[in-house]
């Protein structure tokens, strides 16, 4: 059991370093460390993340958006060990600014060859990265229905005007 855990941990660690560098910059450092001198099956797991030249002494000093991106890199890293054919993301892009949304969608597009993504979002840029949009609305109070989603100005999502369909 210990061997299996250490093997999995190492895979997650490698995935994390690679995913983190795609979401931040290739120059940024990060690592995953097992608490030392403790039984690996009991040890705590430390996340070290140093985006863009910063030297935070712990991930708690990172900003809301930086934490979300770091956690997303780690959740993807774990996901990649035993990848499911599909991955659903529910509004994980909410704390991200425009530049980070672009990095987020870029990494999704990179994985999309082998994974079907279903992304719930309020963000126009994320919507622009999708192949298909599904609009949900409650025309009648308390009852959900699907609608066609239209965009203004050609294919660019200026404001997703959700109309009955």
């Amino acid at each position, binding site marked *: 059991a210990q061997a299996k855990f250490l093997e999995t941990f190492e895979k997650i660690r490698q995935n994390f370093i690679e995913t983190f560098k795609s979401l931040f910059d290739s120059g940024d450092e990060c690592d995953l460390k097992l608490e030392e001198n403790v039984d690996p099956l009991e040890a705590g797991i430390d996340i070290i993340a140093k985006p863009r030249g910063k030297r935070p002494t712990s991930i708690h000093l990172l900003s809301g958006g930086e*934490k979300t991106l770091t956690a997303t890199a780690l959740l993807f890293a774990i996901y990649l060990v035993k990848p499911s054919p599909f991955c659903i993301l529910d509004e994980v892009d909410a704390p991200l600014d425009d530049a980070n949304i672009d990095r987020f969608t870029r990494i999704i597009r990179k994985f999309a060859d082998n994974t079907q993504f279903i992304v719930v979002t309020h963000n126009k840029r994320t919507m622009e990265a999708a192949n298909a949009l599904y609009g*949900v609305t409650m025309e009648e109070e308390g009852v959900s229905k699907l609608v066609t989603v239209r965009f203004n100005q050609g294919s660019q999502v200026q404001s997703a005007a959700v109309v009955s369909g």
Partner: protein
Amino acid sequence: MYLSKLEIIGFKSFAQKVNLSFDSGISAIVGPNGCGKTNIVDAIRWVLGEQRYSALRSEKMEDVIFNGTKSRKPLGMAEASLVIENNKGILPSEYTQVTVGRRVYRSGESEYLLNKVPCRLKDILDLFMDTGMGADAYSVIELKMVETILSDRTEERRRLFEEAA
């Protein structure tokens, strides 16, 4: 392998039948707050066998059945069915398409279906074993998990790692 069709009726805010057809690319689900987007995510987890009602924001089984509005009575049953394209033969089945269905009644009684034939929950869970597609896999990533994985509570983070091992 990908999810191609989801049908929901009586589940949470879906008082009327709703049909979603997905392709294998990136799909975005959009709409105002409270319109039912996360309920769609809940329906997918539920039909794949999710047994922890807390993961569906519910306290008991019957919370997922449409509980009525000012102008509509509560319903007596919730049902969802999901069509999975088995194009890479990953699922242990000769079929190129596998349909998974689930129903729950106010009495607490549950039904599970595989290709429209009644089966046990175990049959559905066995089908997805080793595909990474079990309901407790990393297939769903939401903001709450970002908080959890970054939290200082070592057991939370360890648990996520161990589930991947």
